[in-house]
């Protein structure tokens, strides 16, 4: 059964780079991959979105290989305020091309 998989948690230290990979082996052909950040007691917030290769904005980079079966969110030089849960969002063909969130990766940034 096609699904979206992320690591459950990751620990890091201030100033380090954090890379979170989402595996999505059957996504809609012409659709984007989007990543969201969620703090406790808040709704998810858009971070970055891409279709292929590499996308970079002021807060993150997104790497997508040619086969689009995974994507990696890269957070450069994290700070304590980056402690949050990070979700990937894709459309899964097997789910009728419905939007499907990954299970989320809890990132803890330590001082």
């Amino acid at each position, binding site marked *: 059964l096609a699904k979206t998989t992320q690591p459950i948690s990751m620990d890091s230290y201030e100033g380090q780079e954090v890379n979170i990979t989402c595996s999505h082996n059957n996504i809609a052909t012409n*659709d*984007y991959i*989007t990543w*969201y950040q969620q703090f406790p*007691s*808040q*709704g*998810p*917030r*858009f971070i970055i*979105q891409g279709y292929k290769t590499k996308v970079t904005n002021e807060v993150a980079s997104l790497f997508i290989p040619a086969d689009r079966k995974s994507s990696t969110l890269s957070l450069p030089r994290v700070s304590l305020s980056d402690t949050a849960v990070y*979700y990937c*969002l894709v*459309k899964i063909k097997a*789910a009728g*091309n*419905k*939007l*499907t*969130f*990954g*299970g*989320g990766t809890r990132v803890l940034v330590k001082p």
Partner: protein
Amino acid sequence: DAGITQSPRYKITETGRQVTLMCHQTWSHSYMFWYRQDLGHGLRLIYYSAAADITDKGEVPDGYVVSRSKTENFPLTLESATRSQTSVYFCASSELGQGVQETQYFGPGTRLLVL
């Protein structure tokens, strides 16, 4: 700029009662979504709407009803609440949706407890 709001923010109800969660957005976005978030399941899509009077099921629609008579409002009704519907409910909107994936803007959530 109010954005997207949800009400109530917290709700306690009893099994079998009808509950309606409200969602309102001020951007005139075409698409609106309802998700539930539970420990161990992440965010799951309940229903979505592409425009007024157009709705479609998501991953977990059973036990829920939606309507969209106006573009800015997208209420979610639990017709007969069950304990398994205890969850945090998030509403979201986007200018575009299923056709071209675009940024979704989420509300603050409603915490629902069904006793």
